[in-house]
Structures are given as structure tokens and as C-alpha cells.
């Protein structure tokens, strides 16, 4: 581990509302930044998936083809493809430009909660309430998955993929990390159904949100708890958590209509951002800048830091 910088810059958290996206697609089940943070995807409960430029607030494309509400989506590293999953038990691979369905992967026995590309967008991983994670091959025309990871004892609620690891959170209260390089499965018991998991940017820690209204930062190697973050409310719904762009803060949705941010090291609550009255269903943190997308009901809000100017040249389109 590299030494931390002597005096880290004062990091800013997104507080300023920049854009409001009227999604018009029912409830927004998930909102996700793309790989470089210039665009975002919203998954609607009206079976549609939309691509936005959140900086301008324009909708770029609508992808329709799901048979039921869309629950999660992800973009490939080169922005050429999208994958999404939904309550229709399918995982769909989309072509960004044409909006056509490239492939539909069927095989899950229940609705699919979460979906991720691997680093090179050659494999799609999807986690479902049928308690399995399926690895779909984008390269070959095989209809069946490469491998089924069915170690979970209950539905898989969240999934993240690094270059050689698959991190999954399950309702059985376990955070499972499949390490392909080492060929081992580490399962950490959290004690409460896990709703969301995250890797930290440095790849050393995992963050797990669970239904006991607690976020836990776990050491990846040993499973020890490095931090615990409470104060928000998450007892019933599947809500997202995130880490800020420099791993300085931990963020989470809450059922009381706010987004909470804690200092990662100290564990103290730094910010509670009132978003709306309803449950904040989903959030997504900008991969490189202090920007935050939150989704409640049918709207998506885009937040930036206070010092942010209206239009930055770096954020094109």
C-alpha cells in the first residue's frame, strides 16, 4: 500500500442540484453512470431503459425490449454495448448506437436483480433471486452460461466485478467474493440480508449495505470490519451504496428520502442530502469527479459539488 498523501485535498461532496431528469418511465429502478461518467442509464419500471446525458439533461436513446421492469443496467468499457436485466428473468445485451437487442440470455429462474460486465465486456454476470450468479459469454453464441455460481443460499441482490474478482451480496447475509486468480471463494457473513456491495477504488476493501441499516467496510483479504456506518434507514428495500470518487466518503440511499455520506475513516456522518420525500431507490457516484445521481420515484437528480460551474468543457456532449 502506498503511503497516503501528506495532506489530502479537501474533498467536496456533491450538494448542488444541477439537473433533474424527468424520466417518464415509471419508477426508476436504478440509475447508473457509464464508465467515464459522461452518460447515465436509467432503468424504468415500464420495461424501458434510457440513456441520458445528465450534464445536459437530455435523453439520448430509449432501449425497449424487456418484458418486465428493468432492474439494473451497465455499460461496457468502450461504451459500445449495454447490458440490462429485469424482472422478466432475462439479461439483455444492447447495441448502444442502434438500440437493438444483440442478445438475450435466458436461464434465470427468477427475476434478475443485478448485472455487470467484466472488464473487457466479454462476459456478463447477472445475479438473480434464484440465488445464482450466471456468467454469460458474449463472445460465443452459446445460449447457456459459462458457469453458474450457486453458492448463495438466497437471492443475489448485488454484484460487482473487478478484473479478476466477482463480488456478490446475497439476501442470506453473506458477501461472497469469487477470486478467479486465486481460485477461491471467500464468504463473509454480515448478519443481515445484503442489499448492495461495492469495491473500493483501491481494490482493498469491500463495502456492504445490509437491511439492518448498516454499511460495513470489510477488509478484502481478512474479512475484518474496517468501518461501520449507520444513521440512515434501510430495513425493507434494496437500496444502493457507493464510495466517493477518491474513496474518501461512503454514501448510501435511505428510506427517509435522503442520501447519507460518511467519512470513510472516521465513520462520522458528513452529509445528509435531502433528495425527496420518498425512498431514494438508487444512486450512482461519478467515477472520477464529485458527481452524484440519485433516483427517486420517476425522477433522477444530478448533484455536483458547490464549486462546480455550470458547464465544464471536459464533460462533452
Amino acid at each position, binding site marked *: 500500500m502506498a503511503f497516503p498523501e501528506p495532506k489530502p485535498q479537501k474533498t467536496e461532496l456533491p450538494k448542488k442540484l444541477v439537473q433533474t431528469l424527468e424520466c417518464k418511465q415509471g*419508477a426508476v*429502478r436504478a440509475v447508473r453512470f457509464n464508465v467515464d461518467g459522461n452518460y447515465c442509464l436509467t432503468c424504468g419500471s415500464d420495461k424501458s431503459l434510457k440513456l441520458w446525458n445528465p450534464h445536459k439533461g437530455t435523453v439520448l436513446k430509449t432501449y425497449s425490449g424487456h*418484458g418486465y421492469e428493468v*432492474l439494473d443496467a451497465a455499460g461496457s468499457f468502450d461504451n459500445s454495448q449495454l447490458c440490462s436485466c429485469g*424482472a*422478466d*428473468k432475462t439479461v439483455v445485451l444492447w447495441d448502444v448506437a442502434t438500440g437493438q437487442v444483440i442478445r438475450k440470455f435466458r436461464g434465470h429462474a427468477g*427475476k434478475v436483480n443485478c448485472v455487470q460486465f*467484466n*472488464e473487457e465486456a466479454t*462476459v456478463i454476470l447477472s445475479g438473480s433471486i*434464484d*440465488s445464482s450468479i450466471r456468467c454469460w*459469454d458474449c463472445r460465443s453464441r452459446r445460449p447457456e452460461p*459459462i*458457469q*453458474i455460481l450457486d*453458492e448463495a*443460499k*438466497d*437471492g443475489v*441482490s448485488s454484484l460487482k466485478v473487478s*478484473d479478476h474478482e466477482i463480488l456478490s451480496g446475497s*439476501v442470506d*447475509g453473506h458477501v461472497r467474493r*469469487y*477470486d*478467479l*486468480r*486465486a*481460485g*477461491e*471463494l*471467500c*464468504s*463473509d*457473513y*454480515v*448478519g*443481515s*440480508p445484503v442489499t448492495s456491495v461495492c469495491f473500493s477504488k483501491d481494490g482493498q476493501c469491500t463495502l456492504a449495505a445490509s*437491511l*439492518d441499516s448498516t454499511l*460495513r467496510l*470489510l477488509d478484502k483479504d*481478512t*474479512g475484518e*470490519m474496517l468501518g*461501520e456506518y449507520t444513521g440512515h434507514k434501510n*430495513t*425493507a*428495500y*434494496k437500496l444502493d451504496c457507493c464510495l466517493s470518487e477518491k474513496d474518501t466518503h461512503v454514501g448510501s440511499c435511505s*428510506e427517509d428520502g435522503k442520501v447519507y455520506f460518511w467519512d470513510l475513516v472516521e465513520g462520522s456522518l458528513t452529509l445528509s442530502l435531502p433528495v425527496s*420525500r*420518498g*425512498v431514494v*431507490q438508487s444512486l450512482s457516484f461519478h467515477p472520477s469527479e464529485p458527481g452524484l445521481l440519485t433516483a427517486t*420515484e*420517476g425522477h433522477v437528480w444530478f448533484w455536483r459539488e458547490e464549486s462546480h460551474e455550470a458547464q465544464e468543457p471536459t464533460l462533452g456532449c
Partner: protein
Amino acid sequence: MEASDSEEEDLASYGTSLEPLLEGQRIKKPVPLQEQTVKDEKGRYKRFHGAFSGGFSAGYFNTVGSKEGWAPSTFVSSRQKRADKRVLGPEDFMDEEDLGEYGIAPKEITTTEDFASKHKDRIKEKARQIAEVASSIPGATALGDLISPAKITIGVELLRKMGWKEGQGVGPRVKRKPRKQKSDPEVKVYGCALPPDGSEDEEDEYQPENVTFAPKDVMPVDLTPKENVHGLGYKGLDPTKALFGVSGGGDFSLFTDGSENTSNLLGDLRPSKGRKLGISGQAFGVGAMEEEDEDIYATETLSKYDTVLKDEEPGDCLYGWTAPKQYKNKKEVEKEVRYIGKILDGFCLASKSSAPKKTYLPPELPRDYRPVHYFRPVITARNENPFLLQALVESTGKLETDTPQESRHTLNASQRRELLGETALEGPSPSVLEYLSGKDRERIKEVKQAAEQQMKIQTFSQQSVNRSSSSDGAHHKWQMVLGGQIAIPGSSDFKPFAKNPEKQKRYEDYIESLKQGQKVDTQESRSDPGMTEWERGREREEFFKAAVLYKSSNSILSSRFTRAKYEDDTDKVEVPRDQETDIDDKESAVKMKMFGKLTRDKFEWHPEKLLCKRFNVPDPYSDSSIVGLPKVKRDKYSVFNFLTLSESSTTTVTQTTEKMPQNINPNKPKKPSRWDVSDKEKKRKDSISEFISLARSKVENQQQLPESTKEEARNRTKEPLTNKVVNESTDQEEEEESRPSMDLFKAIFASSSDEKSSSSSSEEDSDEEVHQPTSAVPDSESGSHANPPDTSVSEVQENMAVTNEPDFVPPLLKEELNKGEEFGPKLPPVFFSKTTQKPESVLLSSSPEVNKKEKHKKNKEKYKAKREHKHKKEKVRKKKHKKHRHKGKHKNKKSEKSSSSDTADSSDSLSDVEKITNLSPQEFLQRLKCLPARKQ
């Protein structure tokens, strides 16, 4: 190529050698075409202007022509300088390059066409001429060598140096006649001797013994395409040859023999025999001086042409591109008629014709023959049961009066075996009893004895009771029929009425009497005195059917099956090798926030090879074929499987029932959620883990838990359970709905290898089946009887699984029906009303479950006094709901999922609701299996 070393110095080298590569130096890539540049003689780059617009030289500094452009610099008015008018040749319009070495009109000294000729003779001539011209120069011959073109290939040159001459074949010299070489140029170069031709003997030429000849040249196949409309193999008359007799040889007919043709192709000069001069052939008639006139009137027939593409004919090297041959062996004309085609080498036509093939005419059909078969109702009798024979004769009145044994189709396997003198199958008709353990057999014996005693008493007391002797004739008939057919039922072999020992006894008596051919009346005395006449008749019918049934099934069974040689591995299951540590331990660790070792499980996990490939990661277990978690085989009924698998949710049913035996249902054996650990549970957990460690060490020593202890344990579990079940059923009628299915109890009780309970149900079945003697019955029945107890357990379990399956409702469909029914954490509702602060207070009306829960929550807060009552109702509702939920679940994951999804729900403060009754059967089973462990 240069020989790399001097080791072989006699190798010739041609061309310039490449510079030897330095070590580590890379081979330079050739410059690609688009990067190649053209420079003029002064080193300036030249631009290509296009093939038709000047090429590389588009004029003066890329202008065309001159400094002035298109205007020709050499323009002179023709008026003044008419006399100087030059005649312009093509060279005047050419560029410098064109006149250069590689241009189209080179001005350098090069080999001209003359020198590049193929003909050696001409070349030599030219060379000689030049040498003559330049004879004054001293090095004339050397100059001649220089000039001599290198058009002759090196191969030819080498051959020449080795003494080869044109027209000869390549190879060692052979001792052969020179004549033959010319007549058979097709002979292979390597000269396998041909069978001597008759024609050869005719020409006696002098040939010295020690003279060898060069092998014949190989005739290259002429593959020029046919472009004319002549027939195949047609060759026009060559006037030069025809008129001047160059060709010589045989007849110059249109259809000459192939061999002669080829010799012509070769252009060999044969000594002409003066008389063959001029055009000759059929079309021209026969000259006065010619001897042969047999062919004059030969007609052209199609048979002379090849109509089929055949294999290469060995005689000519034309490979089929020839006109048909005329076989002019005049002596064998008649043979030619018979056989058109070439006779293979080493074969000759048979002198004697073989006998003509005999053909046999089909037999003549009788006049009244109809090609439809008519089956007569035939009854063939077996020699062994004359009674049946008789009865059937009576009933049908028709019988074929043929002797038994006359048709082989009427024999059965055993009869055939006897005829063949084979030994009987080994393992003589194993009865079901043999599969039973000794203990069971004893038990059966006991039962039997008890029944017999009872029977004795009864018969004794009922001796006096008389009955009508109107034994029906039909029965008598049956008796007769069955006489020979009923196999000796080794008294306990087959018990269709084992449920009713008295009846069974009567049945056995009946069989016995049938065997002895006794009157039924005598046997009737034993029957139950309380029975009416009608009942007795019915019973007799039953017995008869059972007897027939048993006879068939028995013989079928014993002949079809032999004893298993190897034990089945049915009582082993695959379980993950690395078991998760006890969830209770983790639970407490989480409570204490001691994350780390206590909450972490590490497994060896094998990723699929393709997955590794896609992730660009080397396969960590490249030499293993396992995918996922490595599995090991464990004893299926081992307590440990269930101990380790069952999470803390396995509550002790027995304990609670003991504590409060009269009131079981609500609130007592609470389903523990994962994060509230009561003291009691902690204690229990300790005891469990203690037991596990203890038992594991034990197992390590003796590897297997003795069967008896397991059985004991099971028996022990049984009692309190039955207790409980009884209580439950009496307590609440509505409980019926959620009670575990019958299959569950079967599974539990059947596992205890208790013959009585497991077989009674099957006997019920068989009893019913007996009433309807269908052909399918024996099989199914035999199956249930032949099963050893262990497999029957698994069978029942399978049945259970099967029955569960059709209940499966697609989750999507279900979700549409009931949106609230979700697993795990729910999705937030679609819309909230803006007026309310609490999102959960206003929810979609289509999610009754959520509503209920919320209602319940409130209720709990507000009306704690009424809790009991409320719980009941709640429970019922939940149960119904639960049922739904189970249906949609994946079969094998059922228990785990239900338990954990419960916990998810229970976070909604439902944790104290009693859930025992809502358990899936399998989980229930698991819990029960764990009970003995707790007790110890």
C-alpha cells in the same frame, strides 16, 4: 543457396548468398509496396503520375514535355525546312528509361530471341556461326560459350552431362530389345519386364547378349483441350507424313492402334518399308500391291467406340483420350464378339464358355390362394395344465386338437431350457424375504405365528357353525383351472392380504387346498364364520385373482432378475467438501462485531476454464476438471450432513413440546431470525457444536456411525413428533391446511426401516390393485415389493419431490398476480403520495402482503394486549401466503431459501410469529434429523 559449411563441398551454389544473420538480429521485413520509392539516376524522388499520363516521367519537372509545357521544343515550320524533315521512329517518343536496360527498347546488348530458342541444334549452329565470324579473335570459343543462352534448364544440362540423350528415358540401362522400345513406349521407365508378345518373336533381329539399352522415354500426357468438333481421338491426315512416308510403321488408318499413334507422336523415325508409302486406309481402298484386304469392308459400328469412361488402359499412355481400338487379332474374331473390352494383362479369354446360369422359377401359387392371412382363434394347450384346458374347452368350446409341444412358440423359457438341457438361472427365484434383514424376518414370523394362533382359536370355536354347501360351480372350475398353475407360494413369499392376517391365512389355505386338488368345501370350514355367503364368494374370487396374479409376477420376477452383485451407492450424497462453519458462531461474532476469521469462510473454488480465459486470468486449477466447489461423497443419512447444513433455524421441536405439551402452536418454537440470539439458543448451540466436535472425532476413529445408533435416534425422534402431530390436529382444525403433507410422514417413518409402517401403505395399494387384474399391475406391485427398505425411502422422497414440482408457478406470473410477493429486499413502490411523510403508510393496493405486514406492525404496537388473538389470524393468513411462496420456489434450494427469506421478512418485526408449521417438508425433515444430536 550456398552450402552453409564446407562439409559438403561438392554442392553447387547458385545466386548470391544472403548475409549470415547476426545473433539477436531480426530479419528485416521487406519494404511494403506502398512505401517503396522510385529515384532517378541522380537520386531524386520520382513521382508516379499514372500509367497513362506519363508514368514516372511526366515531362520537365513534372510538366509534360518541356519547360514550356506541351509545346514541342523541336517545332520547326515545315515550310522552310522541308528538306530536313526527319522520319520519326518510335524511339523518338520514348523516354530515357524505355531505352535503358529494363525499358521496352533497351539499347544494351542482350540475348535475342534467336539465342533464346529451345532447339539445341539451332543454338549450336548460331554459336558456330558467330564463332566463325569472330574467328580472328583469339578467344572465340570462350565468347561462344558466353553467348550460348541458358534457356536449357539445369536439369536437362545435368542429365546431359550424365550421358543422357534426348529421346531416351531416364534411369539405368536395361537389357532389352530395341524394337520393343519403339513399339511399346508406354513401358515404365523402371522397366518391369512385360510378358513377351507374340509379335516380338516374329521379328528376329540380331541382338548381342551384353548390349544394354537406355530405358524408354516416358510419354507425357497430352492434355490439350479439345476444341474442334471431330470425334474423340480424331487426327487429321498429316500430308507431310502421309505423302512422304515419314511416319512409316503400321497402317495409317483413322483408327490406328494406340501404341502406334504414340510412336507417331514421338516422332521417332522408323525404318520405312518402302511399300507403305502414300495414303492408305480403309477409305482409300486397297492398293494393288497391298496384301491386307480383310479390312476393306469393315464397317463402322458404335461398338468400336468406348461408351464408358474406363480406367486408364495400360497399353497406351493416353489415359482414355483415344478413339476406340480395333482389336484386330483376327484369329479371335468370335471372341471379340462376345467380349468387348480389353483383356487384362495376365488374363486371356476363356476358351470354354461357362455354363449358363440356372434360373429358378417361383413356385406356382395355388388357384385359391389369397394373399391375406386369416387367424383362426386357436387355443393351444400346454401339457401341464389339463384343468385349464378342460375349462377353456368348456367355456369356448373350441380347441385345436393338436398335441402339446408341437409348436415351439408355445414353449416358455423354462421349457425351452429344459429341452436344451441348460441349467436353471442362478439365484433361484429370490423371494422378497431374502432382501429383508434377519430382524425383519423374525418380526414377520412373529406376526405370522400370532395370526395362526388366533386362527386356531377361531376355527376351534367355529367348528360347529355350518354353512350352505352350495359351493358354486364356477368356483369349482377355478379350482380346477388353477390346480397346476399356481406356483407354490412359499407361504410367506407373497402376501396380498398381509394387512389382514386372518384373511391371509385363509388365502394360504385356499392355495394349499387348490394345490392338493381338494374340494373347496373342506377349506371353507376355515373361513370366517361371520361372513355372509356373498362375502365368502367375493373373497374366493379375490383369492383366485390374487393367486393368478402372483403366479405370473413370481415367474416373471424370478426369471428376469438376478441378485445384485455390487451394492448400490444409493445412500451416499454429494455434499460440498468444505462445509460452512456454523451460522450460530457467525451470528454471535457479528453480534460482537468481531468480523474477520469468525465470519469468514474460505473455500476452494474452481472457475470454469472459459471464464478464466474471458477474464484474462490464468486458470488456478488448470489440471482439475472440477467446476465450482469441490464435492465429496458422504453418507446420505449421516447425521452430520444435516447438522452442518441446518442453520440455527432448526429449533428443537421436542424440547418445546415437552415444555408446553398442550399448547404448541403460537409463539413457542419461534423461528429465530439471524440477528437475535436468545440465551437458550446460545446454550443449545454450544451443545450442538460440542456434540459435533465429539462426534467428528469419533467418526475419524471408526469412520461410520453404526446403523443401530442411527436407528435408535430415529425412533426416538418419532415419538415426540407423533405426539405433536396429534396435538396439533386436535387443537386446531384450520391447522389442517398447513400441516406437512403425508409424504413427509412417509419419508420420516419409512426411513426407520420399519417394515410394518412402510409396507402397510404399499399393501393397501396392492390390495386395491388386486381387485383389478390388469396387465400393468404385476410390475408395479413387484416393484414395490422387491425394493429393499432403503431404496423405498429414497423413492418416497423422490415422490415427494415429484409432487412438489407441478405446483411450480412461474414467478413472473405470480408476481403479476401479486406484486407484493417478493423475495429478499423489496423494491420501493412505484409512486408515493406527496402528502404523506411515511412512505410505507401508503403503498400500492396491489401489494397485500406489505399491507398486512404494516398493519400487523401497527397492531403490534398498539394492541399488544390482543396479541394472541391477532396472531392467530395473522398466522392463518400468513400460512396461505406461505403456501404460495413455496410453490414458486426452486425445488432443491427450497429449504434454505424459505428460511432466509423468512429472516428477511422477519426484519419487519415478524420474527416472533410462530413458523414451525409453515416449514417446507424437507426442512422439517432436516430438523427432525438433528434432534437426536441435541438430545445427546
